[in-house]
């Protein structure tokens, strides 16, 4: 099937629509109260602190339920079942949603992912020097960070708080440093989250970290693709369940694969394994966001595919590759500030 626009453009349209709906949905519908939000367990960083949001991410619900329900349930402060049930319901809702789109919640839906991509597009249009991609070493060193954030800040500290072992201010430590909280509240005109909170040493440290991380992410995103995604705990949570998602990235390797490497260069998450993997069919790796760029930039027929329920949705092909490369060259040429050493022709940059 020949698409009227390329997949990157289609994805951008979906992302921007999802951003507007998730961040400002309350302006069009009735999503103000938490009870009105769509699920309360969204597998993407749409933020509960944004009063206009139409839904919010599962990470805040996990943290609060661990601190206020599961912990007290385990210590006997409340009935164990009423402590565990809400957590089970949230978990079930998250899994149900996740199965439908798998990690595409990152590549197609997440407001924070979209914001980083838009910033990177801006950086390119401004002619800022771009980081081609991170080295395998750096990527390997960064990979455990998201697991640490997930285990410590999303699950560990909130549960320990609920058990009464940690300060109450550590009941939702990930939310306290999450860039989406600052981004989405600022987007709706609420500056109350970009503050330094002197209430206690814990809030002071967490708000310092949050504000710094927010600035850091913005500056990095102008010249590097998806800087925060690389350490995002939601990405780690997705990785745990990626085998049950209906959407997959599938590879049928050819002997030429290990020479070309265009797919890996196109990948915004620098997943080198897409290029080097010759055995596995399912190449939906831990860091994959199912954005489909590797499929777009693979010049070989049906080597890479996005498959839904086992059926091909979008396959690599030489014809598509040629069209896509032309579009990329055209896009890369049109920057506001031209540099003689600007984006290299034909490179699979961001669009």
């Amino acid at each position, binding site marked *: 099937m020949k698409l009227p626009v390329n997949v990157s453009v289609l994805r951008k349209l979906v992302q921007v629509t999802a951003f507007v709906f998730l961040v400002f949905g309350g302006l069009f519908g*009735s999503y103000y*109260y938490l009870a009105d939000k769509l699920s309360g367990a969204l597998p993407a960083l749409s933020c509960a602190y944004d009063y206009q949001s139409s839904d919010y991410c599962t990470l805040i619900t996990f943290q609060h339920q661990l601190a206020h329900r599961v912990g007290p349930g385990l210590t006997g*402060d409340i009935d164990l079942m009423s402590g565990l049930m809400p957590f089970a319901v949230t978990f079930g809702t998250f899994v149900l949603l996740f199965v439908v789109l798998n990690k595409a919640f990152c590549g197609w839906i997440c407001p924070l992912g979209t914001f980083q991509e838009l910033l990177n597009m801006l950086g390119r249009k401004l002619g800022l020097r771009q980081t081609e991609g991170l080295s395998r070493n*750096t990527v390997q060193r960064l990979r455990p960070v998201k697991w640490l954030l997930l285990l410590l800040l999303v699950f560990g500290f909130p549960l320990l708080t609920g058990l009464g072992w940690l300060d109450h201010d550590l009941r939702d430590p990930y939310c306290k440093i999450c860039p989406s909280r600052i981004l989405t509240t600022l987007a709706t005109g609420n500056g109350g989250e970009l*503050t330094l909170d002197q*209430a206690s040493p814990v809030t002071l440290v967490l708000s310092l970290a949050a*504000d710094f991380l927010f600035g850091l992410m913005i500056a990095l995103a102008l010249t590097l693709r998806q800087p925060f995604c690389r350490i995002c705990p939601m990405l780690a949570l997705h990785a745990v369940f990626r085998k049950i998602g209906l959407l997959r990235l599938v590879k049928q390797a050819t002997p030429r694969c290990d020479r070309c490497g265009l797919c890996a260069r196109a990948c915004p998450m620098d997943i080198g394994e897409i290029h080097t993997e010759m055995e596995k069919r399912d190449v939906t790796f831990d860091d994959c966001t199912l954005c489909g760029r590797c499929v777009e930039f693979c010049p070989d027929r049906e080597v890479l595919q996005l498959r839904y329920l086992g059926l091909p949705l979008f396959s690599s092909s030489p014809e598509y590759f040629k069209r896509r490369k032309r579009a990329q060259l055209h896009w890369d040429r049109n920057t506001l500030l031209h540099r003689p050493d600007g984006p290299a022709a034909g490179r699979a940059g961001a669009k």
Partner: protein
Amino acid sequence: MVLLALGLPLQAQEPGQSGSSTATETASHGAGHGRRGRGPKRLMLANGEGAVIRLWRPDLSSVILRPEHGSVTLSPTGMEGLHALVVQRDWGDGEETLLRYLDLRGKPTGHSPRDLLAVAKSRFEIVPDPQPREHRRYRSGEEWGFLLRFDNRPVAGVAVTLTTAQGTRLDAVSAADGSVEFTLPDDFPRLVEGVKDGRSAGFQVSAVYRHQQLEYRTSLDADYRVDPRHWRSSGWGVAVASLGLVAGGLVGRRIRRREGVQ
């Protein structure tokens, strides 16, 4: 006419209102969520003879509560979410209503707070528009809207008063669509800048409406907290984020040097 009052706002009795009903809330708050108590709450009611007390649940069912020895006990309803306590007294020549919303814990009902706010709980009513969202509180310095309704229709041009437990009084008049806005006064005494202050106090939004020679007096009763901007600095927040921006620029440059540029 006697002004009914419930809970904390009673500390803010309006001057010159002799014989006011008084009630003191002795609530056991649930850990972690302040007002979202799990256990029973007892409301002391003085001078409340003849008042009908009704508790509305999130699913719009309601029960009449009977005061005993000058107090009324609010037992857990088993439902999660917004409840409304409505105290009403018929004075013959008019009706007096006092309403207080309570966010209680229990099992989710699938009902939005919107449902409870939409339903008429008395002929003349002041409705929060919006009600602070779950887990959120009224805070000093914030602007909040209210809606005046009579027989569930907006009423315009009615004088509305907001009084706080600290004695501040603000006046406004309802607009054509029945709406009125107040900025909650930053009137907590003895605030220390840079130090968290967890105090809360009551405020009451009241109005009187005359219809067919009858006088309808209504009050909405709620609590507000100290403005967190007293210990949360936006200036420092922006400064730290700017530092992050600069650091990001430097780190980006370092990465490009080490890992190559495009």
